[in-house]
């Protein structure tokens, strides 16, 4: 089980789907869902500058296009990895599966890419099986579709 998860996605309905799927699959006990990349960045910046670092989520799922944010999901991943201390399992959860975007995400330090669909649970289950590899930084980038 993952200690704590943060979801950054502008779609409120997906927050509910993700929350229920995580609970049904016993993925985590602590889930925080945010609507904006700016809000997530602010929190990571605060943890990085003021601490406590242990309050940071263990794993972050970021939507690719976050409507209402000043930058996209890939940029958020880049900032968390390169500006705010890294050390979290982080990746994209998006309905898009564009290869060009995936390579940009890899360059920004994304570890996984989950394609959103009506059947999200099997993908999350598969992700959970690989989770230790992501945590130890031994697993390579993988697309779940």
């Amino acid at each position, binding site marked *: 089980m993952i200690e704590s998860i943060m979801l950054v996605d502008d779609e409120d*309905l997906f927050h509910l789907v993700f929350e229920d799927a995580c609970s049904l699959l*016993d993925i985590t006990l602590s889930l925080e869902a945010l609507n904006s990349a700016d809000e997530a960045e602010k929190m990571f910046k605060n943890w990085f500058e003021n601490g406590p670092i242990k309050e940071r989520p263990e794993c972050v799922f970021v939507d690719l296009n976050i409507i209402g944010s000043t930058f996209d999901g890939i940029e958020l991943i880049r900032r968390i990895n390169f500006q705010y201390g890294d050390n979290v399992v982080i990746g994209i959860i998006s309905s898009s599966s564009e290869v060009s975007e995936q390579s940009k995400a890899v360059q920004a330090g994304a570890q996984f890419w989950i394609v959103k669909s009506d059947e999200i649970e099997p993908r999350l289950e598969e992700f959970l099986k690989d989770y230790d590899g992501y945590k130890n930084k031994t697993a390579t980038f993988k697309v779940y579709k």
Partner: protein
Amino acid sequence: MTKLKLHKETIKQLLELKKKRRINLEGNILKLIDTTGDVELKKYVDDAINEGKAKQRQRLDITKKIQSQNKELLVSQQENEELMSQLQTALDDAEKAKDAALLDLDFLQKKTQFQLIQTIVRISLTVIIGVGISTTVLYLFALSVDRDTELIGNTWSNMFGILLTNAFSIIGTIMGVKYANKDSK
């Protein structure tokens, strides 16, 4: 993860609450309760978790359905916008076709007018040339038979002057009309 150890009295109250009012603990807190050694509490927690999962499954299905309906709505909205844009393009094309047709009609009308002018001019020139020829023939005849030619001579020269003036005036008009039509194209 640290497990929560509940007091015996609390467990008793929880079990009674479930029995009397069918009220359970809900959510992830259940997964943190330590049930070791207490069969009754373990059953309570398992039942509550299963009940919660059933509710969550139901909610997840409904949420997914709403999400999929929202997506369909979004797609149909996009299709509508596309149709509206196609309609606007068709309307613009129709407007352009109408303008072209009006231009053609105008050209056709001008062409008809020009043909009418041509006919009038042709008839006028025929009449002028005919009158000129017939007067000249009459004058030549009068000269050849040695009759009094003073009256017919004056008449011929006056008529010829008038006919020539009119002929040039008509030719000038034709050239003017032709020039104007050329410009308007």
